[in-house]
C-alpha cells in the first residue's frame, strides 16, 4: 500500500493546499469583494436579530414610506417598518435555504457525477437516466406541487431544489471526471492496487475541484433566485415575517407612489447573486492560473515591420513572384517570425515544390499568397507580382479578387475543406455561379462536367452526397474540381496527398499533373515528401525555420544538394533507409555534416 503511494505520487500534478487557493482568490479584487460580501451576509443571517436596529415586524404608521434617513438607513415600508431590519432578518431564510439546497446538490451531484464518470458502463447509464428525467421536468411546477403537498414547508422545498440541481451538477462533474479518469497516473494508481475509493478521494476529487466550485457557486446563485421567487409568489415565508422575495412583492404593490421600495430588496438579491457568480469565476481563474502561466500581453510589433523588407527586384517573366515575405505570430505579446524575408518565383507552366519539415513555414507561405492566414498569424511585410500587378501581401482585402478566379488552392485535409452541411453538388454550383452568373440548372450541368473531368464515376450520385458520405480521395477530387472551375492561372496545392492512402496519392498526383499540362497552369506544390517532389515537380525550394535555404531544379536538388540541411533532409527520407535499421533523423545528419 505504501509502495503504491510512492509510485504514483510523483505523477500527480501538484495541487496547492486550500489556504493558498483562498489567498489567491482574496488577491483578486472581485474575489475579495465576493468573499467579503458573502461573509457579511452569512454573519448577518446568523446574528440577524441581534444586529437588526429595529424589530422587523414593528409597524409605525406615523413613519410610512420614508426615504433613507439617519433613523432608518434604508427607509421604511408601507407599514412604517424599518427596511434594513427586514432585509437583515429576511437574510436568515435565504441563507438557510441556499445552504439546504446547496448541501443536497453537492452531496448528491458530486457523488453521482464522480461515480458515473469513474465507473462508466451501466452505472453511468443509470445515472444518465436519472439526470435526463430530472432535466426534462418542469422544475418550477414540481416545486409548486411540493410546496402545496408539504404545506409551504420551505426546507422541504429547498431540499427538492437541491435534488433537482443535483442533476446538472452530476452532469458537469461527470464530464470533469471523465477528463481526469483516463490520465496515465490514474491508470498507474489502479495498477498498483489502490482502491477505487482512495483513487477518487486522493486523485480525482482534488483535480476537479475547479469545476465543482464553479458549478456549486452558480447553483447557489440559482437557489437564491428560487428561494426569493417562492417567497415572491407568496408560497414561502408568510407575511408579516420578512423575506427578500416577500419584500419585492410588497414593493410591487407600492410602485404607484413609492418605487424606492424596489431598490433595497432588488439590489440585495442581485449583489448576493453576483457575489456567488464572482466567487465561482475567481476560483476558476485562480485554479487556471496555477496550471498555466499567463503573462500580460503587450505589443511589440515594431521589430519586424521596418527594415527587413528585401530590396530584390521582381522576376517579370515569372507567373508569380514573391519578395520579402515575413509572417509573424503574436502570443502573449511576444512576436515571433514564422517566415522571414522569403523570396520565390513561379515560372509560367512549372510545378514548384516547396519542401521542408512541419513548422518550416511552407504552408503559411502559400496561404499568405491568398491572404488566408489563420487568426493570430499575419504578414508584416511582403510584395507579390502577379499578372503585371503588384500586391501588398499584408493587405488581405486587396488579395480577395484573386481568390479562386486567378489563384486557386487545394488543401491537406480534403474532407475538412468541405462544408459538412451542404452536398457536393451545392459546393460546385456555388463556385460556378460565383464566377459566371448562370441559372442553377446550367451550373449543375457544368458541375457534372467538372466532376467528370477529375475522373469521378457515377457523378449524379456523388453530386447528391454530403462530405461525410464520401472518401478522402473522392473529397480531394471534389476539391480539385472546385478549384479548377474558374480556370485559374496558378494553383496552390498544400500537401494535397498527405492525408491520403498511398494508392490514392498516386492517382491524385496523376490527376494534378494531367490537369496542369492540359490547362498550362503554374502550380506551387507544398509537401514534406521527397518522393512527391521527385515525381511531380520541376523545381524545388527547400525551407527550414521560415527561410528558403536553396532553390534549384529537381535534378540538381537530388544530385547536387548545395546546402547541408538539404542533404540531411534527403538522407532522412524513410524510403531510402535500409530495412531493419533505425530511421535516420535530421539531427543525426546535421551532426554528421558538421563533423
Amino acid at each position, binding site marked *: 500500500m505504501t509502495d503504491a503511494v510512492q509510485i504514483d505520487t510523483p505523477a500527480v500534478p501538484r495541487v496547492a493546499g486550500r489556504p493558498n487557493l483562498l489567498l489567491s482568490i482574496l488577491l483578486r479584487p472581485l474575489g475579495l469583494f465576493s468573499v467579503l460580501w458573502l461573509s457579511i451576509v452569512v454573519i448577518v443571517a446568523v446574528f440577524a436579530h441581534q444586529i437588526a436596529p429595529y424589530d422587523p415586524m414593528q409597524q409605525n404608521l406615523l413613519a410610512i414610506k420614508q426615504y433613507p434617513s439617519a433613523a432608518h438607513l434604508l427607509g421604511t415600508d408601507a407599514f412604517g417598518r424599518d427596511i434594513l431590519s427586514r432585509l437583515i432578518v429576511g437574510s436568515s431564510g435565504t441563507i438557510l435555504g441556499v445552504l439546504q439546497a446547496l448541501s443536497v446538490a453537492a452531496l448528491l451531484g458530486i457523488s453521482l457525477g464522480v461515480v458515473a464518470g469513474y465507473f462508466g458502463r451501466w452505472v453511468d447509464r443509470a445515472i444518465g437516466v436519472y439526470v435526463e428525467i430530472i432535466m*426534462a421536468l418542469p422544475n418550477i*411546477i414540481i416545486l409548486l406541487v411540493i410546496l402545496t403537498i408539504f404545506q409551504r414547508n420551505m426546507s422541504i422545498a429547498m431540499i427538492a431544489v437541491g435534488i433537482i440541481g443535483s442533476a446538472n451538477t452530476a452532469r458537469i462533474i461527470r464530464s470533469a471526471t471523465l477528463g481526469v479518469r483516463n490520465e496515465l497516473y490514474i491508470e498507474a494508481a489502479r495498477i498498483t492496487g489502490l482502491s477505487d475509493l482512495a483513487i477518487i478521494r486522493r486523485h480525482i476529487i482534488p483535480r476537479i475541484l475547479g469545476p465543482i466550485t464553479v458549478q456549486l457557486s452558480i447553483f447557489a446563485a440559482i437557489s437564491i433566485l428560487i428561494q426569493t421567487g417562492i417567497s415572491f*409568489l407568496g408560497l414561502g415565508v408568510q407575511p408579516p415575517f420578512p423575506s427578500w422575495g416577500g419584500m419585492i412583492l410588497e414593493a410591487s404593490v407600492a410602485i404607484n407612489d413609492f418605487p424606492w421600495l424596489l431598490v433595497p430588496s432588488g439590489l440585495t*438579491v442581485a449583489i448576493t447573486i453576483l457575489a456567488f*457568480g464572482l466567487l465561482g469565476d475567481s476560483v476558476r481563474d485562480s485554479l487556471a492560473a496555477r496550471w498555466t502561466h499567463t503573462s500580460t500581453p503587450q505589443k511589440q510589433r515594431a521589430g519586424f515591420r521596418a527594415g527587413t523588407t528585401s530590396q530584390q527586384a521582381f522576376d517579370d517573366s515569372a507567373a508569380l513572384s514573391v519578395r520579402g515575405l515575413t509572417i509573424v505570430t503574436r502570443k502573449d505579446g511576444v512576436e515571433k517570425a514564422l517566415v522571414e524575408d522569403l523570396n520565390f518565383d513561379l515560372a509560367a507552366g512549372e510545378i514548384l515544390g516547396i519542401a521542408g519539415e512541419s513548422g518550416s513555414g511552407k504552408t503559411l507561405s502559400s496561404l499568405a499568397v491568398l491572404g488566408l492566414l489563420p487568426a493570430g498569424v499575419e504578414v508584416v511585410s511582403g510584395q507579390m507580382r502577379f499578372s503585371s500587378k503588384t500586391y501588398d501581401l499584408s493587405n488581405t482585402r486587396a488579395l480577395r479578387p484573386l481568390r479562386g478566379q486567378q489563384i486557386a488552392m487545394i488543401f491537406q485535409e480534403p474532407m475538412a475543406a468541405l462544408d*459538412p452541411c451542404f452536398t457536393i453538388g451545392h459546393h460546385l454550383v456555388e463556385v460556378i455561379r460565383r464566377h459566371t452568373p448562370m441559372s442553377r440548372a446550367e451550373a449543375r450541368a457544368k458541375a457534372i462536367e467538372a466532376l467528370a473531368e477529375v475522373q469521378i464515376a457515377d457523378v449524379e450520385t456523388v453530386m447528391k452526397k454530403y462530405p461525410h458520405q464520401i472518401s478522402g480521395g473522392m473529397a480531394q477530387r471534389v*476539391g480539385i474540381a472546385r478549384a479548377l472551375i474558374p480556370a485559374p492561372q496558378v494553383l496552390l496545392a498544400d500537401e494535397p496527398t498527405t492525408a491520403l492512402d498511398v494508392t490514392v496519392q498516386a492517382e491524385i498526383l496523376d490527376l494534378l499533373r494531367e490537369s496542369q499540362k492540359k490547362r498550362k497552369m503554374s502550380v506551387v506544390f507544398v509537401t514534406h515528401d521527397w518522393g512527391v517532389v521527385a515525381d511531380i515537380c520541376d523545381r524545388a525550394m527547400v525551407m527550414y525555420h521560415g527561410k528558403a535555404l536553396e532553390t534549384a531544379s529537381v535534378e540538381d536538388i537530388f544530385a547536387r544538394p548545395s546546402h547541408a540541411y538539404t542533404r540531411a533532409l534527403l538522407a532522412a527520407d524513410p524510403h531510402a533507409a535500409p530495412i531493419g535499421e533505425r530511421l535516420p533523423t535530421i539531427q543525426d545528419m546535421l551532426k554528421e555534416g558538421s563533423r
Partner: protein
Amino acid sequence: MIRLILKRIALSVPLVIVVTMLTFVLNNMAPGDMAATLLQGEGSNAQYEELRVKLGLDRPVLEQYGDWLGSAAQGDLGKSFFTGESVVSLLNQRFWVSFSLVIGALILCVSVGISLGLVSALRGGFIARAVDVVSVAALIFPSFWVAIVLMSVFSVWLRWLPAVGYTPLTENPRLWFLGLILPVISVALHSITTIAKQTRDSMGDTMNRDFIRSLRACGIPERAIIFKHALRNASLPVVTVIGLVTVSAISGTVFVERVFVLPGLGSLAVEAALNSDIALLQGVTVYFTLLIIAVNLIVDLSYGWLNPKARVE
C-alpha cells in the same frame, strides 16, 4: 423522421407517468391529507371522512393513481378541488395567453440574441463587451424584479403601456400587443444574452474551421460565407440553447404572469398552489411536461434538418 418522432413520443410516456406518479406518492407521504387542508381545521370528523371518500383519498394510492391515469389517457384530468371545474377546460382557457407570451419571447430573444452574437463574433469590441455586461445584469436580477421595474418605468411613470391585465387578440389586437410587450421583454431578457453568447462562441469556433478557409480560397464572398455557411454550421449549439431557453421561458411565465396579472398557465399554477388545489396542479404538471417534451422534440427535429450527419437514415 417519423421514426424519430415516434421514438421521442415512446420515451416521453414513461416520463409523464413518472412525473404524475411522483405527485401522487408525495401527496400520500405528506402529513395531513388534502381533505384536512381543504377543511382548514374546521368541520367534524364525519365531514372529513365524507370529503375523503368524495376525493377518493380513502383508497390505496396506486388505485387512485390508476384511476387518474385511466381517465387522463382519455383526456380527462379530473376536476379542480377548489372550483369543481374541469381541469382540462381550465388549462385550455389559459393556454393561449402563455403561448403568446412564450412565442413572443422566443421571437424576440432569437432574433436579437443571434444578431448580437453575430456582430460581437465578427466585430468584437463594444458590442461584445456590452453583451457581457448586460448578461451579468440579466443573470443577477430576478426576472420578476425586472418585470416590476419595467412596469413602474413604462406603465406607471411614462404611461406608455398598460400596466396589468390581458386583452384577448380577438377583442382588440392593439391592446393585446401593447399588453404583451413588457411581459415578453421580462421573459426574454435573460435568454437574449444566453443566445447571444452562445452564438458568439460557436461563430468564433466555426470561422476558424478549415472549410471556411477553402470557401475563401474559392473566392466565395465573405457575406455568403458568414450567413450561409458559418451560421448554418454554428447554429447547432445555438439550437440546443434555444431549446433550453424555451423551457426556461415556459417556467418564467409562472413569475411574469403573476406580476402582470395575465390569465395564463403560469398564474393558474400559482393560484392552484395558493389554493392547495392538487388536482389542478397535477393537470398543470402534465401540461408543462408535455410542453417541454414538445420543445425537445422540435429541437431534435431541427438538428436533423440542420445537420446532415444527424439525419436518421
